[in-house]
């Protein structure tokens, strides 16, 4: 009973930390975005210097588009980037020799990758570029847009998982005690949270339930794998796989030899 409850809490906590960590990683990495997404970025934070796209913090962005309106000055180069979803103003400060060298390859009408820091000035967003390199293989353009879609899908899934995890914490714990499959099916049916007990399903569930049955749990030397296969009417190979998985998850352990297994907890 205690094990189930703590597993229940532990499950949602496990879900929270990697999910939160993933969302935090977005703050520091290069986020692929379309210019339309950038235009819709809202400003977050007290000092209004951070942006938020699809609910995730964004600091540095990568954009792919066609260059136009190049204006070269002594200290900087500005240009406009058009990716088909919008036009974005970009500025490259010429601090290092590398900056000047890299900008020599940038000409009007070519497609480039731009990596930079998203900034806002007088309500208008622009990018302070720290790398601008020409596209050499045009699959890179297709790939960039696919990456934008993937990043968006991943970010919104992570947020949904966090919301779901928070909902679980506030759900009363009574559903856990319903029979042998109680806590396992509760978690896997309620959430789309990764990193929990989603792996325990199907055959694994049946094997675990069998071993957790009080009559079987009471047998000190454990249950032979052949008996499990016979009673559940499943092939030995499948039973062995399940037993390995359950053992790795810490739900069962082998006793007198590698063919005898016992559950860590009884079901009732």
């Amino acid at each position, binding site marked *: 009973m205690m094990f189930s409850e703590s597993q229940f809490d532990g499950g949602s906590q496990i879900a929270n930390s990697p999910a939160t960590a993933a969302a935090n990683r977005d703050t520091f990495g290069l986020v692929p975005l379309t210019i*339309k997404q950038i*235009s819709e970025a809202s400003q977050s934070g007290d000092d209004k210097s951070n942006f938020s796209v699809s609910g995730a913090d964004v600091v540095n962005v990568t954009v792919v588009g066609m260059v136009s309106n190049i204006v070269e000055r002594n200290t900087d180069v500005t240009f406009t980037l058009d990716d088909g979803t919008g*036009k974005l103003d970009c500025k490259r400060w010429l601090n290092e020799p590398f900056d000047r060298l890299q900008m020599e390859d940038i000409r009007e009408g070519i497609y480039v990758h731009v990596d930079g820091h998203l900034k806002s000035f007088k309500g208008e967003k622009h990018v302070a570029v720290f790398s601008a390199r020409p596209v050499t293989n045009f699959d890179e353009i297709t790939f960039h847009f696919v990456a934008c879609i993937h990043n968006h899908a991943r970010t919104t899934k992570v947020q949904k998982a966090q919301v779901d995890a928070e909902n679980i914490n506030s759900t009363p714990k009574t559903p856990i005690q319903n029979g042998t499959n109680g806590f396992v099916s509760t978690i896997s049916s309620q959430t789309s949270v990764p990193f929990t007990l989603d792996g325990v399903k199907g055959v694994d569930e049946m094997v675990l339930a069998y071993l957790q049955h009080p009559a079987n749990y009471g047998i000190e030397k454990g249950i032979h794998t052949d008996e499990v296969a016979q009673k559940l009417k499943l092939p030995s190979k499948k039973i062995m796989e399940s037993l390995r998985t359950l053992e790795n998850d810490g739900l069962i352990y082998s006793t007198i030899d590698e063919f005898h297994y016992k559950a860590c907890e009884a079901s009732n």
Partner: protein
Amino acid sequence: MDTSNPAVLVNGDLLGSYVGRRVRTVIQVVQPSAGGLTGRSTDEKQVVVKGQMPSPVTTFVEVIGVADSAQAITAEIVTNFGDTTFDANNFNQLCQHANGAFRHLFI
């Protein structure tokens, strides 16, 4: 920042849904002609492009322009996309996504 005039990512099938609007697509050139070219879209539909072409033109070109009909575009910009290494299937699927569930990221 200006998102007022986007070019919708289309393939042959989707071109008809955006007649009169600014579109962009990649076409495999079948036959160059005076003042344009005839090509095949990434989903194997015939498309006729009118406008100024780069010279010489490569096997794949990206056309940004206004859709005149389900099979024709008046081009503003035509960019050479190379002779061999463009993945048409990837681009085709991207068009479907960009006009499907993830439309809001693009237009």
